[in-house]
């Protein structure tokens, strides 16, 4: 019997058939190494344990559905079928599904994606949009049967029942969850009917919360035009959705506490503003009334006619003063004159003669004799008295002794 001689291709094809036929698609656990992604999106890596290595490929069509970032050192559980790569005389696993094996792996994935998106600037503070301080409409994305919804509504009702809440029912756990939440974000952004979006769910394990670490969701949150508040998990749980959101709240209740102002407080603020506005405008009006009163008063004081009257009065006053002064002066002069006249009168020889004195003069030439030296005995003299004169003749002449001294 003649032996059949195989070509290389023939034996490769048989090996392929045997492998694919006898090894059904299986779940395999191992540690990732040599991880690479080519430029069209196919993923290549190896799974290994202590004694063996298995090459793995994830075609682009499957790679897009992996919910986390694969990194070297991560433990994975993958599902796929064993096949061959005849060009290199290799066998390998075509991976269809991927799960992280254990928390450590998810944590590695979390850190890897966080690092990548952070480098892209998705978590930058400058990207954060302000959350409306006084919202009237809030878009809520959460499970409609979860405790998160109940908590949020309770607090929101207590603080301000006038706020309208639009609920987009989403899945918050599992493979489909991220897609429903993304849809919610898109719908609110399309409707633009709310002030901001709150994405929330209650606490859970890292796996439970994994939806909120999936890259497409984190990117959608970052690029939403409406601001987003993320309240995922409980207190200590952080997700990448929290980092990408504009505000992170530690719990669903806290999200309501932080974003919804109390109605009583708002009413107080508004009343206070009304009161202050009223006070200010009243003051303003009062000031203006005061000013008007002031101006009126000044106008009255400065009336031109009034001024003219004042001037006329002043002229009258001055005139009177002048008259009085002139009169005084005339009176003064009159008095002076009178005194002078009286003095003159006193000095008039006639007045002296009225008091009994006489004037003696030579007869007939009427030359007044002022001294006995002008006389001789027997001389004819005239004597004039107050009421007439007479002729006389000197008998004796006696000088006054005292005068000689």
């Amino acid at each position, binding site marked *: 019997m003649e032996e059949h001689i195989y070509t290389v291709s023939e034996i490769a094809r048989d090996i392929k058939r045997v492998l694919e036929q006898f090894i059904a698609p299986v779940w395999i656990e191992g540690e990732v190494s040599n991880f690479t992604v080519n430029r069209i999106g196919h993923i290549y890596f190896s799974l290994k344990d202590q004694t063996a290595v298995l090459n793995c490929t994830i075609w682009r069509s499957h790679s897009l559905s992996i919910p986390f970032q694969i990194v070297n050192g991560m433990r994975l559980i993958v599902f796929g079928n064993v096949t061959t790569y005849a060009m290199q005389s290799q066998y390998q696993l075509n991976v269809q599904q991927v799960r992280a094996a254990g928390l450590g792996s998810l944590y590695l994935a979390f850190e890897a994606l966080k690092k990548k998106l952070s480098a892209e600037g998705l978590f930058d503070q400058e990207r954060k949009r302000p959350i409306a301080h006084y919202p*009237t409409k809030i878009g809520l994305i959460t499970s409609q049967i979860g405790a998160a919804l109940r908590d949020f509504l*309770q607090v929101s009702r207590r603080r*301000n029942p006038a706020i309208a809440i*639009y609920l*987009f029912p989403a899945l918050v756990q599992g493979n489909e969850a991220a897609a429903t939440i993304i849809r919610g974000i898109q719908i609110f952004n399309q*409707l633009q009917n709310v002030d901001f979006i709150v994405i929330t769910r209650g606490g859970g394990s890292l796996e439970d919360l994994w939806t909120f670490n999936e890259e497409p969701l984190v990117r959608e949150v970052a690029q939403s035009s409406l601001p987003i508040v993320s309240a995922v998990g409980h207190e200590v749980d952080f997700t990448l959705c929290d980092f990408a959101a504009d505000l992170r709240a530690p719990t669903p209740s806290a999200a309501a506490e932080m974003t919804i102002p109390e109605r009583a407080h*708002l009413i107080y603020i*508004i009343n206070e*503003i009304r009161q202050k506005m009223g006070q200010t405008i009243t003051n303003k009006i009062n000031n203006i009334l005061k000013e008007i009163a002031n101006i009126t008063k000044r106008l009255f004081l400065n009336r031109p006619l009034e001024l003219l009257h004042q001037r006329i009065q002043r002229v009258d006053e001055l005139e009177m003063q002048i008259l009085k002064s002139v009169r005084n002066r005339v009176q003064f002069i009159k008095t002076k004159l009178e005194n002078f006249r009286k003095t003159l009168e006193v000095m008039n020889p006639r007045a002296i003669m009225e008091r009994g004195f006489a004037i003696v003069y030579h007869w007939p030439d009427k030359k007044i004799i002022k001294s006995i030296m002008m006389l001789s005995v027997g001389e004819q003299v005239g004597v004039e008295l107050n009421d007439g004169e007479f002729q006389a003749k000197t008998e004796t002449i006696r000088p006054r002794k005292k005068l000689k001294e």
Partner: protein
Amino acid sequence: MAKKSFSLENSLKRLEEILQILESGEKDIEESIKLFEEGMKLSTECQAHLQTLEKRVKLLVEKSGGEIGEQDFPESPETAQPGSLFNQE
């Protein structure tokens, strides 16, 4: 759909602004009275908004064809408390 025209946020922002201008005293009386009237109108709107009774939660529903509808969300008794201004606190 909610009224697009009223925004508590914008109204309160404008109110603060009006109060600040009034208090600065930089506007004349005519302008001030106009601002005052605007402020009173805005604040009345805000008060009216705040005194509306409890709004129901609306559930958004995607219909076939991508249209979005709204339904009242049936709340459990513990979340749907009657909201009146006077039983707060």
